[in-house]
């Protein structure tokens, strides 16, 4: 157990991150009760391991990594691991198949429900990196640390997530027209 001064520092660093940790746990598990359990366990583990945290490094990336590992041992994650994820194929993804007109790339993003639905439909592994990047503001190298993959994989997953999200929104737009 860390010394009291260490505990106080941990509290100071972790307290502002609670809403983000809960929100991310919810996106991972899609369940409020499980999200709370995951965050509780994450706090408990992080506090016990706080002595191994190197001051000056990114605490947010460190604690998000613990959160993710905690999620991976949860019931939901174990069940989800049965689904197959097509691994990253940069050669297939990094192509420039342009839409018929450039303006077709512009979407009407004022429909919150459609955006929410499209995000929900993303593969969990793609949604995870996208949220760590766009919502949590982590850099690619920090995301690589959190999810334990090479930085190139982070880049291709983010790219693929945005492309898939864009396609979902375009399809929804086509249906609504």
């Amino acid at each position, binding site marked *: *157990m860390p010394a*009291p001064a260490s*505990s*106080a520092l*941990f*509290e100071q660093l*972790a*307290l502002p991150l*609670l*809403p983000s940790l*809960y*929100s991310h746990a*919810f*996106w991972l598990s899609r369940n*409020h*009760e499980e*999200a*709370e*359990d995951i*965050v*509780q*366990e994450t*706090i*408990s583990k992080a*506090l016990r391991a706080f002595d191994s945290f190197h001051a000056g490094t990114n605490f947010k990336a460190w604690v998000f990594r613990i959160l993710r590992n905690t999620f991976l041992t949860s019931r939901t994650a174990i069940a989800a691991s049965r689904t197959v994820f097509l691994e990253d194929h*940069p050669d297939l*993804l*990094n*192509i*420039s198949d*342009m839409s018929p007109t*450039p*303006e077709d*790339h*512009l*979407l009407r*993003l004022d429909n*919150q*429900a459609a*955006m*929410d639905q499209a*995000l929900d439909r993303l593969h969990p592994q793609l949604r995870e990196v*996208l*949220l760590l*990047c*766009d*919502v949590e503001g982590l*850099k*690619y190298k920090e995301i690589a640390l959190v999810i334990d993959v090479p930085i190139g994989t982070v*880049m*291709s997953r*983010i*790219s*693929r997530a*945005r*492309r898939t*999200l*864009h396609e979902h*929104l375009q399809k929804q737009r086509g249906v609504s027209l």
Partner: protein
Amino acid sequence: MTHINAHLGYDQVSAFIDGELSPKETSEVEEHLANCHPCAIRILSATQLKAATRHVSERFVVPPEALSRLTAQLSPEASKKPAGVYTLRSWTWGALAASLILAVSLLGWHATRQSGSLAAELLDQHLAVLSGGSPPEVISSDRHTVKPWFQGKLPFSFNLPDALPAGTTLNGGDLTFLHGQPAALLRFNIGRHQASVFFTQRSRDESEPATSGIQSGFVIQYANTHDLRITAVSDVNPSDLARLMSVLVEAQSPR
């Protein structure tokens, strides 16, 4: 990276808007964008999508009772407890938290009642539903039963959707009054949360719906259709309530 003649790849677009390119790569992309309209549009689109993703997720609100429990766990006193104690969630805790929130909300509402605002009135009716526990006057999850029940009781008509969002069920309806006007109060369950949705006749001089927001910990969302005003009150997270509102609004479109 050499001078870019071909269009930007997806990875390049993402890395550029995320600020992940080196200064040299960034200037090369900028040079390309100055002369390539299609890629400039794609950068704009990707930037908008990034902002929209952030915005959608920011609308997600952590339940206050969960945040309170997690904050308490962070205190040194709480952290001395054995790990097994950390699992605070249980029906008892949930019921206690709900009662506490309800009591605080009722107190908070009574303090602001003098304002006589529509929001306070809506909240009052929703809290009455929660605290009273009385069943709706028409109890049914079937829209073909609930909707006809209001015929002759209201000076307007409304539609109910064929399908509700996943996890949402219709419990029934009540006739009620808001600001002296007759209203249909529909009761829904979204997961374990209750939601009250009010249908009222829209006045002709009413242009835009009121701004949605949070009052006493409850989410209040408004929407206008051509003839109706729809208002929802619940303690569920705003995105789930917005999904229900969306299908209700859509159901009012001419078929």
